């Protein structure tokens, strides 16, 4: 599979243009991938990264421009053609079939067959060969359904699948968005190893540090145009950020002036079960004060989600109490909690925070169904709701045609801004924000962060859950680290390094001397995932779907 280094670039895209209706997703983009290198693609949401790579992978036809692979011009009508030319893509949303086994997922579409029956043992040999060659550890799990695994394993399966199909040009579309810091490290490591065996990689990401860490070359897209291509060792985060958004972006942690007041939200000994009836939160105590942001950090699946859903009233609490404003709210329904002043920005804007095929007016009513002036004694005042939607759109800089646009027509960042606006304008006493900037571009991240900080300064109690350490560190006044359903530690963001946080999230308290043992580590994590199961949240960013009950 290794190719001779001929000096010809592995992939050359020349002047690629692609339109969707009147959106020019790619505008005469040139792109070159050199043999045996990692080439990062950066750009804000909607800048055209996925589109460009989908063209290379044969999912879309370009309107104009040419694709040259290994010096030969190519026409890809389908991914099958692209695969034959050695191009494989690991999608932002994993393309796995939950109930099928790891092995079946890997060979799907390329099954070896004898006498009309699939020859799984032949496939097994091939896969084991690939695993040992690229040092993947998934061959132990070949007969387990993929849905039993966490995202890290799923991603490795995706990579092996691509390699199994004979790809040596691998496209990774935002592979790190859903991974824990440790998994990200492993992935980057793996990517370097792949280039050593002769593969060429395209790496789409929003994270500048990752691009700098692993890439040889970096191309920045903005509004469908290629702004520049630079060598990774000749640029900086600041420069890349400037290219992406077209202006300077501040990343520094701001110091705060206000002093936190009395505790508003108190949680004592709370226990919460996850979707599969297993306890995910095992006795958590916390108190959030007025004018304070409490950050909750943790690797996904350690109960953060269940905890805040318990507080927000979306999940029953099996033990312990929740007090809000000195009143016990443990048994209040979700609706009563909304009414009493708890705002909640959900992790999953697509399925929870918005009704995708409602327009923004009807979405503005979501959660406000019992709140005047929008509704009085059960009757909706639609004109008041309409005004409300327009106010959110204006004040929170939501890019939408008008209030009657459907939510689905908004990009992810704009959807998020709309939700943030709606929740803040509810004038709450407590704001709970879960992964408030996931998948949001840098400009919008800054905007949302500033809004949250303003809330704090206005004296609200704010809880932020995030797996992005940089976000947690920037926003929080205190950071609680959650591990296996408990707070393993509460730390001061000014006195902790990212490395220390990372270790805490991996379950090691600060005084333990952390001797790194990679292999051990992976097995731990896997065991974790298979026994405990990945709880809600994991599936939201992948298309591997888990059991969906009854309904059609």
């Amino acid at each position, binding site marked *: 599979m290794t190719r001779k280094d001929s000096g010809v670039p592995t992939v050359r895209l020349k002047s690629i243009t692609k339109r969707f209706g009147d959106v020019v997703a790619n505008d005469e983009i040139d792109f070159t991938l050199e043999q045996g290198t990692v080439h990062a693609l950066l750009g804000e949401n909607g800048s055209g990264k996925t589109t460009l790579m989908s063209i290379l992978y044969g999912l879309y036809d370009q309107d104009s421009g040419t694709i040259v692979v290994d010096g030969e011009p190519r026409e890809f009508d389908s991914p099958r053609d692209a695969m034959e030319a050695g191009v494989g893509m690991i999608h932002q949303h994993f393309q796995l079939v939950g109930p099928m086994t790891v092995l079946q997922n890997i060979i*799907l579409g390329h099954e070896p*067959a004898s006498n009309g029956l699939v020859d799984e043992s032949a496939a097994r040999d091939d896969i084991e060969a690939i695993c040992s060659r690229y040092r993947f550890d998934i061959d132990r799990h070949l007969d387990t359904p993929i849905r039993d695994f966490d995202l890290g394993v799923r991603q490795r399966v995706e990579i092996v699948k691509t390699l199994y199909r004979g790809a040596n040009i691998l496209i990774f579309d935002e592979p790190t968005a859903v991974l824990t810091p440790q998994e990200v490290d492993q992935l980057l490591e793996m990517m370097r190893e792949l280039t050593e065996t002769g593969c060429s990689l395209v790496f789409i990401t929003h994270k500048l540090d990752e691009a700098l860490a692993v890439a040889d070359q970096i191309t920045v897209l903005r509004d469908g145009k290629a702004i520049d291509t630079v060598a990774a060792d000749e640029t900086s985060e600041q420069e890349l950020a400037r290219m992406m958004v077209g202006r300077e972006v501040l990343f520094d942690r701001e110091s705060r002036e206000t002093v936190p007041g009395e505790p508003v939200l108190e949680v004592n000994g709370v226990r919460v079960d996850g979707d599969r009836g297993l306890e995910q939160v095992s006795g958590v105590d916390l108190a959030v004060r007025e004018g304070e942001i409490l950050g909750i950090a943790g690797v996904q699946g350690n109960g953060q989600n269940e905890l805040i859903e318990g507080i927000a009233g979306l999940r029953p609490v099996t033990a312990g109490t929740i007090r809000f404003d000195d009143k016990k709210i443990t048994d209040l329904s979700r609706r009563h909690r909304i009414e009493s002043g708890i705002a909640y920005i959900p992790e999953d804007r697509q399925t929870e925070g918005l009704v995708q095929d409602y327009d923004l007016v009807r979405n503005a009513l979501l959660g406000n169904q019992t709140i005047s002036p929008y509704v009085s004694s059960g009757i909706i005042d639609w004109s008041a709701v309409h005004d409300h939607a327009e106010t959110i759109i204006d004040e929170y800089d939501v890019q939408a045609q008008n209030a009657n646009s459907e939510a689905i027509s908004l990009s992810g960042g704009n959807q998020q801004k709309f939700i943030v606006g709606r929740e803040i304008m509810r004038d709450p006493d407590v704001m709970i924000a879960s992964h408030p900037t996931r998948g949001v571009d840098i400009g919008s991240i800054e905007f949302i962060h500033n809004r949250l900080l303003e809330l704090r300064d206005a004296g609200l109690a704010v809880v932020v859950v995030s797996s992005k350490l940089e976000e947690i560190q920037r926003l929080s006044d205190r950071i609680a680290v959650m591990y296996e359903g408990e707070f393993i530690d509460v730390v001061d963001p000014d006195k902790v390094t990212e490395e220390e946080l990372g270790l805490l999230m991996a379950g090691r308290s600060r005084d333990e001397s952390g001797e790194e043992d990679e292999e051990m580590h992976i097995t731990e994590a896997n065991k974790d995932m298979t026994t405990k199961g990945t709880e809600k949240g994991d599936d939201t960013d992948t298309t591997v779907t888990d059991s969906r009950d*009854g*309904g*059609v």
Partner: protein
Amino acid sequence: MNIAAYATQNRMRFGAGAAIVLVSMVFISWFDLPLADILTVGFLTRSLQAAAPIALTAIGGLYAEKSGVFNIGVEGFMIFGAVNTAAITWLVGGKTAGQSALWIAILTSTLIILLFALVFAVLMIRYKADQIVAGLAVWLIGLGFGPFMAVLLWGSQNSPGLASIDNLTIPVLSKLPVVGPLLFNISPLVLLTVLGTVAAWVVLYHTRYGYWIQAAGENPEALDTAGISVTRVRYAAVIFSGVMAGLGGTVLMAHAGSFTGTGETMVSGRGWIGIVAYLFGNYNPIGAALAALLFGGLDMLQIQFQTVGINLPNRLVNLFPYIAVIVVLTIWGSTRVPSAVGEPYESEE
């Protein structure tokens, strides 16, 4: 998936099946019923016959649903299968139609249903028809045009007596006690159903096409990005489901020897039971066939009870399978429906 794995995965289902059998047994011994008079060889044969149409329909339906298309029109396809077979038998053989006329009808009817199913598949897949509604429509169309055809041909919603299929009798072996009449003096269509069940199981779990069907229903994009046309896989599965349901109707008619179009027609809810059978069988063809046998057996058990003089209100006893269906669905409503069922798939082209 091998049988043992299936069995362990579906402990609950087997448990429920066993429980139903057990309850019947307890009932039988409680009332000191003449067990030997109830569980006769004839009873088993009739149960197999009653199960065959349901099993065929269930297997077709599960293929469609596994591939991501909920074909709730199977009841309608059964009606068409039954009426077509009756009509062709009549056209070929008249009132004195024989076995050859019947076989010709079985084959021709299957071809005609194939065309119907193709049209249906085009509507479902190419024109993205709402699967629930289109399926119900097929039922309504069957309920209308089935009897319509009967009235055209015979001036009545019911056909006259035509021909029913002869048993396949193997001379010496059929004289063996119990297994003889059960296995060697058997309707060829029952035999076909058994073979079809096994074949459907092999195809689903051990061939490439089977893999693709599963992927098409769970995550069509994964299949698409693997370079397999989701659309083609679904076409094949939907057409197959229509044909199988049609065949179910055909078998029903070939065993009865005539077509009845009054009321809910002679199909009378068997298509719906077929759907439940594959849910009960957890989308496994063999599981579905066993569930069909359970439903067929329950129906026939009721008759055995009458024969030995246990007089239960017959109209109520007939409801037992329907109640069983509800109980079964509720006890584990968590029957996992393939994720992408009901969503039309459009490849990104």
